[in-house]
């Protein structure tokens, strides 16, 4: 008995030790130079930050909406929970880039730990679970999104919590409440989760229905009621605000008309030829089905995963989302995993997760999309860890030296690749991507406010669109004042806008009134080349970003 207890104790200290190691690694990579890399908030981060500030001081968002569940923002209707999560950090850091990014960093680190515990629950193998969590801690994909204020990363965390508590809840039913809470929370954080979380929960119920129905009725019914209760505000909001689905419609494949011309032409030819088969196969709806299949499959493109990634804010320059050295182990890992000794349910869960992750993104345009498919994590890492273990065991059967050689080779490749990533992320990213991170406003705003002009005209043309939010953010503009000045109007998508002495609209130099009390903030191409520029702000690769000019 005594030895059992001390055994248990040592096991717990063992696990605690591993968790601490994971936290140190994950936190180190996520907190190092926080707020400086990437070099500035993008417009979504600025919007989340200012709305948090507004909520803290007025209880309302920038549109004057009281305690919103969804932020209208740039008419993209962001689920609001992330903004609420920023609020505690406003006390620590004030309205700043660090405050905006901290919730994501916090949940990113927590995700690594929970993935370790989840893996330990599923595979009951400490080495394997530690490896999985370690791979996640150093994953370029996960680091990318847990260092910036992207809601998707918190959505991922809640989904993983939901899965973990569901599995634990099969033994300790009260944890099912936490599971329900987590899945619901993820829906309040990020758009894609409206598709992913319900499907994931449904899959869990189907796979584990036998154990689930052994749980006492009382607990099950409470969990269901709690779920309904949690989901109610979002449900009501969606029913009463049809606009809230505008964003979803805007990016869906069904609003993509690029192929209509060619199908119409084809149908015309079919009609002329009385080609009845043609009516069916050249139908527009068939094109949508093909589009969805294409979008889904695009997320299994090795080039996207290992070499190029998608848009520059979603990956370190000249790198993909996974490490190149992981490729052979990923492929072997899928094989080893499928034929591993673990029970069918575990296998179904992970494979189902892996196949479910790209679903929300496949009905949207602009794929492959690393943010909308963040729920892939940590399935890649699970397979890679299985691949590494499988190879290692295989070598073990052959001979010792082969095994040592294998460890040495993999370590060298992994360390080299990791060093490359660290350089690309911490050094090269700011140089190459400062435009994509909408860099420059911080200096522009502080310079403009030092001038004390009567009117400030700021362009809202790309790449300086949604410029108003950066002014609100860096001026820490009084939310009460803002709401009273703008009367429930705010940014919208590329709309003109005014608050206080700030005007946001395109600058047309030839027809501007140019009175000396007006300051213009625009792109270099907004002004004639011979003009006297008060200040030029440069991107980090030395190209001009913003020019500030007095109307004379």
């Amino acid at each position, binding site marked *: 008995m005594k030895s059992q207890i001390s055994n248990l104790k040592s096991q717990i200290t063992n696990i605690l030790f591993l968790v601490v190691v994971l936290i140190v690694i994950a936190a180190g990579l996520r907190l190092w130079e926080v707020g400086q890399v990437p070099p500035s908030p993008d417009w979504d981060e600025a919007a989340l930050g200012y709305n948090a500030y507004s909520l803290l001081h007025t209880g309302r968002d920038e549109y004057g909406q009281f305690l919103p569940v969804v932020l209208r923002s740039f008419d993209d209707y962001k689920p609001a929970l992330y903004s609420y999560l920023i609020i505690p950090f406003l006390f620590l850091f004030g309205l700043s880039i660090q405050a905006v990014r901290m919730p994501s960093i916090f949940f990113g680190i927590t995700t690594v730990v929970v993935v370790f515990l989840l893996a330990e629950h599923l595979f009951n193998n400490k080495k394997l679970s530690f490896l999985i969590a370690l791979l996640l801690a150093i994953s370029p994909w996960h680091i990318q999104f847990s260092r910036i204020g992207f809601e998707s990363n918190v959505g991922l965390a809640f989904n993983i919590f939901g899965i973990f508590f569901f599995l634990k809840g099969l033994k300790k039913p009260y944890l099912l409440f936490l599971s329900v809470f987590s899945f619901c929370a993820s829906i309040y954080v990020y758009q894609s989760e409206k598709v992913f979380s319900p499907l994931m929960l449904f899959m869990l119920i189907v796979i584990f229905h036998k154990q689930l129905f052994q749980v006492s009725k009382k607990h099950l019914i409470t969990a269901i009621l709690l779920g309904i209760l949690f989901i109610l505000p979002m449900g009501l909001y969606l029913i009463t605000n049809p606009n809230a689905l505008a964003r979803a419609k805007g990016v869906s494949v069904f609003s993509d008309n690029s192929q209509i011309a*060619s199908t119409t032409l*084809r149908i015309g*030819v*079919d009609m002329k*030829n009385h*080609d009845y*088969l*043609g009516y069916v*196969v*050249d139908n527009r709806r068939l094109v949508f089905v*093909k589009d969805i*299949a*294409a979008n889904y*499959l*695009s997320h*299994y*493109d*090795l*080039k996207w995963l*290992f*070499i*190029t990634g998608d848009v520059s804010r979603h990956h370190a320059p*000249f790198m993909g989302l996974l490490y*190149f050295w992981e490729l052979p182990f990923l492929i072997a890992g899928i*094989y080893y995993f*499928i*034929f591993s000794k673990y029970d069918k349910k575990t296998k179904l869960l992970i494979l189902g997760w892996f196949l479910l992750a790209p679903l929300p993104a496949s009905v949207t345009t602009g794929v492959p999309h690393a943010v909308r498919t963040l729920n892939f994590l940590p399935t890649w890492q699970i397979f890679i860890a299985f691949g590494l273990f499988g190879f290692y065991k295989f070598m073990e059967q052959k001979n010792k030296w082969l095994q040592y050689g294998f460890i040495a080779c993999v370590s060298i490749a992994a360390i*080299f690749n990791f*060093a*490359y990533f660290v*350089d690309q992320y911490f*050094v*090269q990213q700011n*140089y190459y991507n400062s435009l994509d991170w909408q860099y420059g406003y911080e200096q522009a705003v502080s310079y403009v406010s030092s001038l004390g002009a009567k009117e400030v005209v700021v362009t809202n043309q790309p790449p300086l669109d949604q410029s108003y939010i950066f002014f609100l953010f860096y001026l820490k503009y009084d939310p009460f004042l803002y709401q009273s000045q703008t009367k429930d109007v705010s940014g919208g998508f590329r709309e003109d806008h005014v608050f206080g002495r700030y005007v946001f609209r395109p600058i047309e130099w030839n027809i501007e009134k140019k009175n000396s009390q007006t300051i213009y903030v625009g792109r270099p191409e907004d002004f004639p080349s011979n003009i006297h520029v008060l200040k030029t702000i440069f991107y980090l690769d030395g190209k001009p970003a913003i020019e500030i000019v007095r109307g004379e």
Partner: protein
Amino acid sequence: MVKIKLLLVVIVLLAGLLRFWQLGAIPPSLTWDEVAWGYNAYSIGIDGRDEFGRYLPLDYLESFGDYKPPVYAYLDVVPVKIFGLTEFATRFPSALLGTLTVLVTYFLVQRLFVQSTRKKWYSLAAALFLAVSPWHIMLSRAAFEANVALFFIVCGGWLYLSFIENKKVLLLLLSVLSFIVSVYTFNSARVVAPLLVLVLIASSWRMLWHMKKTTIFVFLFGIILLLPFVHFFLSPQSKLRYNEVNIFSDVSLVKEANQQIANDKNAWWSKILHNRRLVYSVAYMQHYFDNLSPSFLFIQGDGNPKFSTRDVGQLYLWDIPFLVIGLLFLARKKIGYWWLVPVWILLAIVPAAVARETPHALRTENMLPMWQVIAGVGFIESIVFLKKYRKIFVGISLVFLFLSVLYFQHGYYAHYSREFSGEWQDGYKQALLYAKQNENSYQHIVITSALGRPYIYTLFYNKIAPRDFRSTSIVNRDAFGFVDVVRVGKYEFPTKITEMKNTLYIATPQEVPQHAQILQTFPLVNGQPALVAYTL
């Protein structure tokens, strides 16, 4: 047994039908490479010389300065003799050997899985899937030498595996011969065939060691057959085509690496991280992965409409589950030469990935028929696994396969010509037949070079005797090896059209001057004018 043979016959007939039906009419016209094959075959058939008068060339056809491997022209001599200088005759070797590749695939798969009790069924399924493969059908329906090279490579693989089974030296000799013919047929095969041979030798070196004498004899036999090729390979001309298309001449990558080293303040470790060998390796892998991209394989195929209708991928979406099941099964059960299947696919991409335009269905055609083999194994194993529902499963999945084929074929016959006839240099034929009818009324006939290589179409459609061509033409060769024919008899092909009297002009609508007197327009299938005949 009889049932299997009957099914095989049906599959091969189906393959033939899908490859020969309306072969001369769809694709709607001949590309310049196809025309060059046809005319060179015609020329060799008359006096044993290629268009420019080289006697029985073994190493290359100069053609447009792209130094084509010559086998296709030789294979086309007899069809051109029989059917005349026509589209059908030009494409005949590719369609015929494409059909036969389906048959040889059946034999190859039997050898791959020789110990399996289900090998006959695997083979049938693979043959069926190759017969209906969009990739293979598209490339069998035009004079693509890649498709012929594939036939010889598949033969080579089959014969080698047969040799390992039967130990008959003749099979080994035939196998080596097949691989060598493929080297004389298509550029990509020059890399893929040797790599495959190396892999095959490595897998059976013990056996070859035991029969040293034979091995050395066959080795020498191979070397002798390769001599003409090696001689050409060492010449600067052979590099021209490669230099034109390879990724390693792209200096922007090095510039980018230098910038990154500068960003790291020229640290020593940065020079290792951003080493140019590494940068080019990554670029190579990027192009390599392109050829495995889901969009290329399953959705819209090659971006070049000559190789794909853009309606379906190089494979069908239908294949995906069977590819997954097949791969897992092969890796799990490890029957016979299972490892050769993925290795074959990976090797087939090696030469294509050094090129800038990726993915490329033609240069990676040697991946066939291995995708079909995997899908075949997956399909048969699914049937075995679903004992009770076997009949329903076979019924449903074959219906879906049929619908996929129907979808592809409908697009091909109903819309392909109209949508992409421009890609096939449509318009030349009609224009040149018109020119021939009226050539006696004019002193000069000027044909624009805007659509590319008008001389070869003139030779082909006017059936100009090779002897006349060689004696009445003016040929320019530039420093890059490109061949430019500027005149054949009274036909002239200037880069810039000048105005002359008593001249029939054939040019693109954009080139026609305002005061021209338009005689006739030659439209593409979709009605847009491709060429216009006019005088001044």
